């Protein structure tokens, strides 16, 4: 609750502060201060087991240590993004304060999407998360690519909202017991699902798959991620996607958990398709930004394993996966933003010019591949263990491991470019890098390794 209130209030503060901030760098410090405040307030809520202000919610939001841990991870990752790329957000356009305000609103939406308990709050959370993002995607107003990305994202996003609402209406009407929006009270009946509930479930599934950009509804993701300003791509591909997943897993655990037998095969097919399409198309990309967009689809395939299984491993794993994937991708994007050339050739000879960037980029890439001793390995391990423990579709586990092997190809291509290729390009890269940036990168890489060795540092929080 603290996080929701503080991010919403701070978003408004940033929005109106834009009129009073004289210097362009002021909003960044305000945003960082607000985020630290939100993290402290959120941790305090975990300690004290109750929010600062008591608000009667009628059980519409549900704050467990699982949800609060997820929100903490999301806030910490955003803080890292602000610290690493604060200056790049300032470069996007003139309305710096508003960009930060919109990011705060997105965080508020993610917090609601992580804690919702009724279909109404699910809808509100997803919308509060999406609408500011449409604006952020199009924030580079003169750039045609950014415009296109915004329009495409907006049309696709609101299309999926329409499907989501239709699904909710059918779930409400098809309920076999008393009609209700509370996800824990939805009565699925016994045996085969009634027709209306089945239609509603499929609509909700399509809408959520749209939001997390899994196949077959992934087609918007590469274009949008490619067109948006790179800082916001970094935010979208990590934090927002994780928010979508936490909403997805919550919905299917609480609302449809009893009918798992019936929808599990659907999720299995979606997972396999996502893994295959994400990894295979990423292999052929020349631009690293676009490759990371496809790799985010591939990683979404791994996260879908948690929804496939929904057991203790899956719930621990999705938290771990959020942390591992967000840290590595934010770090990698932070390095990419500093490049003048976004193709893989742009990384040629990075080891000689910027050894710190090279070594941290390598750690992030190894984590995304899932090499042992990095966070990505633990996260993937938890996901695979969840699927194995479920024990129904073992072929999916084998398939996921094979796809992880494909992903090694395109991640290692960048590592190869960093260490074993000479920089031959005529453009002389200007490095705008401060010692603070390097220190932060090292801290991020350190976090990736620490989580990789002791995943319990995060998982213990779930049982606080």
């Amino acid at each position, binding site marked *: 609750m603290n996080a929701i209130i503080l991010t919403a209030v701070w978003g408004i503060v940033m929005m109106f502060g834009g009129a009073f901030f004289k210097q362009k760098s002021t909003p960044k410090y305000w945003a960082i201060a607000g985020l630290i405040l939100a993290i402290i307030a959120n941790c305090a809520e975990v300690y004290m087991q109750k929010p600062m202000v008591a608000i009667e919610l009628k059980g519409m939001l549900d704050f467990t240590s699982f949800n609060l841990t997820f929100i903490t991870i999301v806030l910490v990752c955003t803080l890292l993004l602000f610290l690493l790329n604060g200056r790049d957000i300032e470069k996007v356009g003139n309305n710096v304060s508003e960009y930060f305000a919109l990011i705060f609103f997105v965080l508020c939406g993610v917090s609601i999407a992580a804690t919702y308990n009724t279909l*109404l709050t699910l*809808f*509100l959370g997803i*919308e509060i998360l999406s*609408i500011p993002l*449409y*604006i952020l995607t*199009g924030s580079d*107003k*003169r750039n*045609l*690519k950014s*415009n*296109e*990305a*915004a*329009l*495409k994202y*907006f*049309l696709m996003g*609101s*299309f999926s*909202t*329409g*499907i989501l*609402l*239709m699904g*909710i*209406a*059918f779930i*409400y*009407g098809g309920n076999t017991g*008393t*009609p*209700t*929006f509370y996800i824990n009270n939805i009565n699925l009946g016994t045996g085969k699902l009634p027709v*209306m509930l089945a239609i509603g479930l499929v609509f909700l599934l399509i809408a959520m798959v749209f939001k997390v950009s899994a196949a077959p509804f992934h087609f918007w993701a590469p*274009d949008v991620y*490619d*067109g948006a300003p790179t800082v916001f791509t970094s935010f979208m591909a990590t934090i927002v996607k994780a928010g979508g997943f936490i909403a997805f897993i919550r919905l299917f655990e609480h609302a449809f958990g009893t009918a798992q037998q019936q929808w599990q095969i659907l999720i299995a097919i979606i997972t396999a398709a996502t893994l295959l399409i994400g990894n295979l198309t990423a292999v052929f990309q020349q631009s690293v930004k676009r490759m990371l967009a496809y790799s985010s689809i591939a990683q979404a395939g791994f996260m879908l394993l948690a929804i496939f299984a929904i057991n203790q491993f899956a719930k621990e794993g999705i938290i771990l996966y959020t942390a591992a994937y967000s840290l590595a991708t934010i770090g990698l994007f932070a390095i990419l933003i500093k490049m003048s050339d976004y193709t893989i050739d742009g990384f040629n000879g990075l080891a000689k010019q910027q050894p710190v960037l090279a070594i941290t980029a390598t750690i992030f890439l190894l984590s995304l591949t899932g090499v042992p001793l990095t966070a990505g390995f633990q996260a993937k391990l938890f996901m695979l263990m969840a699927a194995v423990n479920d024990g129904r579709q073992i072929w999916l586990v084998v398939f996921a491991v094979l796809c992880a092997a494909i992903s090694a190809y395109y991640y290692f291509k960048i590592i190869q470019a960093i260490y074993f290729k000479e920089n031959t390009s005529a453009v002389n890269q200007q490095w705008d890098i401060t010692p603070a940036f390097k220190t932060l990168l090292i801290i991020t890489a350190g976090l990736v390794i620490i989580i990789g060795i002791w995943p319990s540092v995060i998982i213990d929080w779930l049982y606080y």
Partner: protein
Amino acid sequence: MPINYYIFLALALFCIGVVGVLTRRNAIIIFMCIELMLNAANLLLVAFSKLYTHVSTLPTAGSDAQIFVFFIMVVAAAEVSVGLAIIVMMYRNTHSVDVNFLNRLKN
């Protein structure tokens, strides 16, 4: 009137919306089709709400669906304001609202 009529009407509206989004090329018309989808959901919710008011003995039965409809309207209004701003921004740069323009990102 049986509830089936409302369900079929809402589904028909929804399908018109979906087909419109998938086939039309004008951004504004796509947008209107999306609104049609949202309103189909509204209609369905109100129909179910009315049904349960009749069926149930509770005086407040079904009222939550009607409140949901208000939320949908508010969110749709927020979406319209953002969406039209994006379309206007697009129009300023390309002097067209045709979504066939959206192919530049592919390569």
